[in-house]
């Protein structure tokens, strides 16, 4: 017997639109980074909430609607190994401004947001500002948070 597999082709994003999150390149693990004491820069600290302590959280932080909505480059992209169900990820030395994060919990640690054959994400994901998906990722306007000079906190909740 022979069966085509889902590798043969994939559905293009459509009605049940795929929540493709830009694959966050592994850069640094920000835990333990010192919070900048220069007042003109901004710090954004996310508290991360997961169901299980496994894999890694991948966060891509965008500084503009063009980059966030249009598939552009994130300002920062980090990989945070998950060692507990409650953790923090801190971005320091940011230009004050508006930022939005797309993030997913890479349960199996393969670096990708795994999807089913119809392109639906099957690993937990989250957006900044508590923005919810509705047949697709929320817009930059919904996910953006104001990050003035100094420290700002946010939450990325991956719990289902």
């Amino acid at each position, binding site marked *: *017997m*022979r*069966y*085509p*597999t*889902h590798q*043969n*082709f*994939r*559905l*293009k994003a*459509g*009605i*049940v639109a795929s*929540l493709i999150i830009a694959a966050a390149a592994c850069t640094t693990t920000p835990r333990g980074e010192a919070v900048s004491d220069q007042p003109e820069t901004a710090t954004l600290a996310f508290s991360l909430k997961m169901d299980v302590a496994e894999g890694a959280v991948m966060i891509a932080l965008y500084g503009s609607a063009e980059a966030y909505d249009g598939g552009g480059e994130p300002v920062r992209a980090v990989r945070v190994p998950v060692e507990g169900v409650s953790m923090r990820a801190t971005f320091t030395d940011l230009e004050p401004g508006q930022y939005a994060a797309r993030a997913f919990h890479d349960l199996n640690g393969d670096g990708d947001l*795994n999807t*089913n*054959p*119809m392109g*639906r*994400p*099957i690993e937990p*994901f989250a957006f900044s500002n508590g923005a*919810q*998906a*509705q*047949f697709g990722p929320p817009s930059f306007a919904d996910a953006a948070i104001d990050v003035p000079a100094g420290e700002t906190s946010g939450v990325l909740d991956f719990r289902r």
Partner: protein
Amino acid sequence: MTTRRDLLRGGAALLAGAALPAAAQAQQRAPLGFHNAPAAGLDREPMRLVQGRAPAGLSGTLFRNGPAQFRRGDATIGHWFDGDGFVRAFRISEGQCTLSGRFVDTVKRRRDAEAGTFVMPGFGTPAAPGAPVSSPDDANGASTALLSVQDQLWALWEGGSPYAIDPSDLSTRGPVTLRDDLAEMPFSAHPKVSPDGTIWNFGPGFGQPAAFLWALAPDGRVKASGLIKLPRASYLHDWAVTATKLILPLQPWVVGRYSPPFAQSLAWRPELDLQVLVIDKADFTKQKLYDLPAGAFFHTADAYEEADGTIRFDLCLSEEPVLDADRGASILRGVPRTGPEVKMSMAVLRPDGSADLIKTPYTAEFPVIDQRLRSQPRGDVYCVTEGAVRPPWGHPYNALMRFNWQTGKRTSFDFGANTLAEEPIFVPKPGTADGGWLLAPTLNLKASATQLHVFDAQRINDGPLATWQSSTPLPLSFHGLWVGA
């Protein structure tokens, strides 16, 4: 003159209407077939035997599913298909019958309940702005059909995962992930169980010209699966399966420009004809496409292959879609049905690539067969049909029909204008090769009660052998199955 509303409410309730809050008034306006089931469910209660006697040997449970939450506050949901699933159990033992029912505890139901209105999207209901829909299962009402898998019932919707239900108390165990990498792939409401126990199903591409194919072992383990491309993005509701083939009829009801809700995106394009894609069970890449005159359908009965390779399957066909966005909404609001009639028909697909539709003049929906004969040449099909006088609302079925394709003979039983008939289920008579009973639920508008009738399947024109009546009317259900004791 007695109006339909009087019939429903009784005069006292009509007078009391003015003093009721909007929510209660909305519920009062609901036609009895489309009123809310009790939110906390229906605890198991005996049904009263109002006629005849249960046949000896009839012992087991008829489980049924159907949407049952149509109103929240003063809002009415957008389409019949979008109400939350309510699973009911008619348990028959020693001549007695009891009835119980529970809503399936879905994410959709919880979020709608929290909001106090309908916020989650459906087939014909738009999502409220900001409603969280991160996956198709968030919109899954588990409202259409049931499948029995080992010790579980699966409540099925069209575009999401099965919801596991405990058959003993109808409590919800939760959505089923069939395999981790196939999480949240759609599993339609019309799986077909082959005689070897393999569960075949498809998942619709919902707007994409594609379908996902499933073959599950009897324990629910995925034996095979695959995504196939379709020549068009037809609305897929039901299909048919033979011993060696999977048959996807592609009606010319297709997704045009997508604008939610889904039903609003479907365009009727009869010039595209009714295509039928036949796929080899053993090799999903082996496919053959047939062309039939345009027609719309929701349900098939069964399919089989003849010795020369000709494939036949019965389907209930109409000139255009019956429950489209408009009619699926208006039926809930008590608007009498307009639109095309649905006729018992048969598709014939020949090895030389030619194909024909045979249409009978008989109105028919919810067709079923004796499951012992599945995938085999067969004459009889059972279904609901129209009685001599139509019932008052949008659901035009108030009679039961047995039609035989080999003899052309039709027999029927007319419940009368005060009754709405639901899908019958064929129950094999123990110790017989072809004997059986039809279990036929109805909603009696005059008695304001759900009834369950038992017919001798071969003598339905004699009328019910037994009729039980509940004290609580439940809204109409779609599909069910029998689990013998």
